[in-house]
């Protein structure tokens, strides 16, 4: 028997047929790849919608689309990017890397893993097919506020069932991640020796389990209001339209952290590697992540300062929101301190990580400004908010994902990507994304509301600049696809360690990582771990 399993290891033991390999797969690496490819496709679909938006906003007057279609684009762009691109990308990275980081042979629940991925194509079929249904896709914004969201046709039902499927998928993914991390760590891989990416995902998974059912409940109430005569949100029937907003944002704010905490983890892996120095304040990073996650549950109504809350509630939500700046600040300071007295090199993952730290912090600043109620009375629902959350989500979450992809790509493909092309992609993206989103701060402050298809001539200049940045950023991502395609086929052979300063179990397996890894638990050598020293 022993020889038998040894030969299996040698032969990599991949299923041969295409369907066997991908449709019926239970392998964490293949499912990770599926998630990542899926997320890339959705990123391009959502990006194409953003291009429609920026093209219509290129100059005042309506040139290309009707306002109805414009509203469909803003709604679908958000849903596709959040649920189709960002979240699956993080789940894909988790699938690939968490078992490798903790020395596990696979995810704890491999069949469920398969199912949670394969729900997504059905979910997005339901969502995207609304574009061609009579009446078109939902137009009420991704927040789906009633009564507006209940005015359209059947598309809301499709959207709600799509959200249910995505929710089931996310919850199963989260259960799997928690089960894997808590049960499948190699002996000696104590919780406080785990890499930060694994840690942030553990915390994120708890957030997902806590809030996805809340979203499911909120949209189910929408469904029964629309089709079964209930009045949860209908004031004329004794309901409360603001209740929806409370429930939605009780999901929505933790959702923001679901999309950023794993990025924090990725950045906390990359900066030490390219600084050739352990992460500064490892335990503080873990506790900061946990406190951000806790705070994320008690700040939801900062999205609703203009709904007419009692002033006491406004003060509470303002103070609680401001508090998030403390653990977030700790993280940023720790990253800078990690670089301090390091030995820095600037390969593409590091460039994206540094871009992340700077631009995410800019998004954090505007977030802090938005927490201040008297000022938020002006900022709320303007382009200032649009600028804020795109700094957090594009130069935050998506730059974090791209940093992670460049960082781990050689481990996946066995080839080094083309460093020159990677750097071009970074600089092209960074310059264009700032041309795209920075002027939107000015537009918001000057008084331009969000979600409008047309605007006064006073807003023309910055909108045109923003659109030009948008087109350039969009093109940069097509270039990204080329860089990835090239790196997946050929290149300089990657070593096992890949990066000179890289530490941790994932760098002890061959590149590309064989189909099965750690079928016998590795022997943990604390000095070879990124965080083997548990005294701090």
């Amino acid at each position: 028997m022993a020889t038998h399993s040894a030969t299996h290891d040698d032969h990599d033991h991949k299923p041969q047929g295409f369907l066997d390999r991908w449709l019926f797969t239970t392998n964490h690496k293949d499912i990770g790849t599926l998630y990542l490819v899926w997320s890339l496709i959705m990123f391009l679909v959502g990006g194409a919608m953003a291009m429609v938006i920026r093209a219509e906003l290129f100059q005042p007057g309506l040139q290309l689309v009707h306002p109805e279609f414009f509203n469909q684009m803003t709604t679908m762009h958000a849903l596709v990017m959040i649920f189709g691109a960002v979240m699956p990308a993080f789940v894909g990275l988790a699938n690939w890397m968490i078992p490798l980081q903790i020395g596990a042979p696979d995810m704890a629940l491999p069949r469920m893993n398969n199912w949670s991925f394969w729900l997504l194509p059905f979910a997005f079929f339901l969502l995207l097919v609304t574009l061609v249904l009579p009446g078109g896709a939902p137009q009420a914004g991704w927040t789906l506020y009633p009564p507006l969201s209940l005015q359209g046709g059947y598309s809301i039902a499709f959207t709600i069932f799509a959200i249910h499927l995505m929710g089931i998928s996310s919850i199963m993914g989260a259960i799997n991640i928690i089960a894997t991390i808590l049960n499948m760590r190699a002996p000696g891989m104590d919780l406080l020796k785990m890499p930060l990416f694994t840690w942030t995902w553990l915390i994120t998974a708890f957030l997902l389990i806590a809030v996805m059912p809340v979203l499911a409940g909120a949209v189910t109430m929408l469904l029964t209001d629309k089709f079964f005569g209930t009045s949860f949100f209908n004031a004329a029937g004794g309901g409360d339209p603001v209740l929806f907003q409370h429930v939605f944002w009780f999901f929505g704010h933790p959702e923001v952290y679901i999309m950023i905490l794993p990025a924090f983890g990725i950045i906390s892996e990359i900066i030490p590697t390219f600084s050739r120095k352990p992460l500064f304040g490892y335990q503080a990073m873990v506790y900061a992540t946990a406190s951000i996650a806790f705070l994320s549950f008690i700040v939801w109504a900062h999205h609703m300062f203009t709904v007419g809350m009692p002033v006491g509630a406004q003060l509470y939500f303002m103070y609680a929101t401001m508090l998030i700046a403390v653990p977030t600040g700790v993280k940023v300071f720790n990253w800078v301190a990690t670089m301090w007295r390091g030995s820095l090199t600037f390969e593409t993952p590091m460039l994206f990580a540094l871009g992340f730290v700077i631009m995410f912090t800019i998004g954090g600043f505007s977030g802090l400004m938005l927490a201040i109620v008297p000022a938020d009375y002006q900022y709320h629902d303007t382009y200032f908010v649009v600028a804020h959350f795109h700094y957090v989500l594009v130069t935050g979450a998506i730059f974090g994902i791209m940093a992670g992809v460049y960082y781990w790509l050689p481990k996946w493909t066995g080839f080094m990507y083309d460093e020159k092309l990677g750097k071009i992609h970074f600089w092209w993206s960074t310059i264009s994304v700032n041309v795209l989103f920075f002027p939107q701060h000015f537009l918001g402050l000057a008084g331009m509301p969000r979600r409008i298809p047309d605007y006064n001539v006073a807003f023309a200049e910055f909108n045109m600049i923003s659109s030009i940045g948008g087109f350039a950023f969009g093109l940069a991502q097509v270039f990204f696809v080329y860089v990835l395609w090239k790196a997946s086929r050929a290149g300089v052979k990657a070593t096992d360690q890949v990066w000179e300063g890289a530490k941790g179990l994932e760098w002890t397996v061959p590149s590309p990582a064989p189909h099965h890894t750690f079928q016998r638990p590795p022997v943990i050598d604390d000095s070879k771990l990124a965080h083997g020293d548990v005294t701090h």
Partner: protein
Amino acid sequence: MHPTRIRSRLAAAIAALASPVALANPERWQLNLSPGVTASSQAAYEMHMIMLWICVAIGVVVFGAMTYAMIRFRKSKGAVPDTSFTHSTRIEVIWTTIPVLILVAMAWPATTRLLALADTRDYEMTVKITGYQWRWRYEIVDYRGQAQDINFVSSLDLDSNRTRMLGSGLDPRAVQRDGVNTYLLDVDRPLVLPTDTKVRFLITANDVIHAWWVPALGWKQDAIPGFINTAWTDIRKPGIYRGQCAELCGKDHGFMPIVVRAVPRAEFEQWLADNGGTLPPGDLLATTADGPAAASAGSL
């Protein structure tokens, strides 16, 4: 672009950033919030500037340290990692405590201003605002203790409305009033308010959620069906102040502007005595529910 034009635009941009002149309406190349014409807008502006400068200061420190590290600790310059520098309780306590103190320094002025904004007592006039898809109804309920019955609907002006149609071929730049571009920021019938008077608003909606926002007044307030929200203003300076609906309310969300014409009290009282000037008889909303175009046409 012609160099003098660039220079004049640059000058305009710098002026917009530097001078706290009371910009009442959006300006080309405007970079910053306007201090507006009320105590509320002043409060919002002050909090905005306090926050902005604190964030700039923190940014200078953090990004400065990062930049220093990126220059000073490069491997290519022979930097050797100090792998023992991974933890310092003292530093960590400091950079947890200082942000807390900064937050308290922010929260204090924000709280005092918010409490002032929330005080709707001692008003002299009440206006009820109702949001509809896609126009606003204004009812002057009372003025200085006297009940009033002025009630009218305010919709996008015809000129903007014609121009904004998809493929209209009309130039938004040509929609002007008194040399100011009013494209999508003009209405057939503005809300007339007296200056130096505390006006209380009762804000609600009839169909979906809207939000009533005039930046120069300093706040926005959601208009929610089934709820009545209160807000107030006290305009210091006569003028025409333009705003827009700020909550997505359907296809014409971008086309339901708000115009407030603030006039001295005497003039306002004259307007009241004239029963709102040229208000048409009857209820526009009763005759049509077909959008601003029809409503505007009906009012002619």
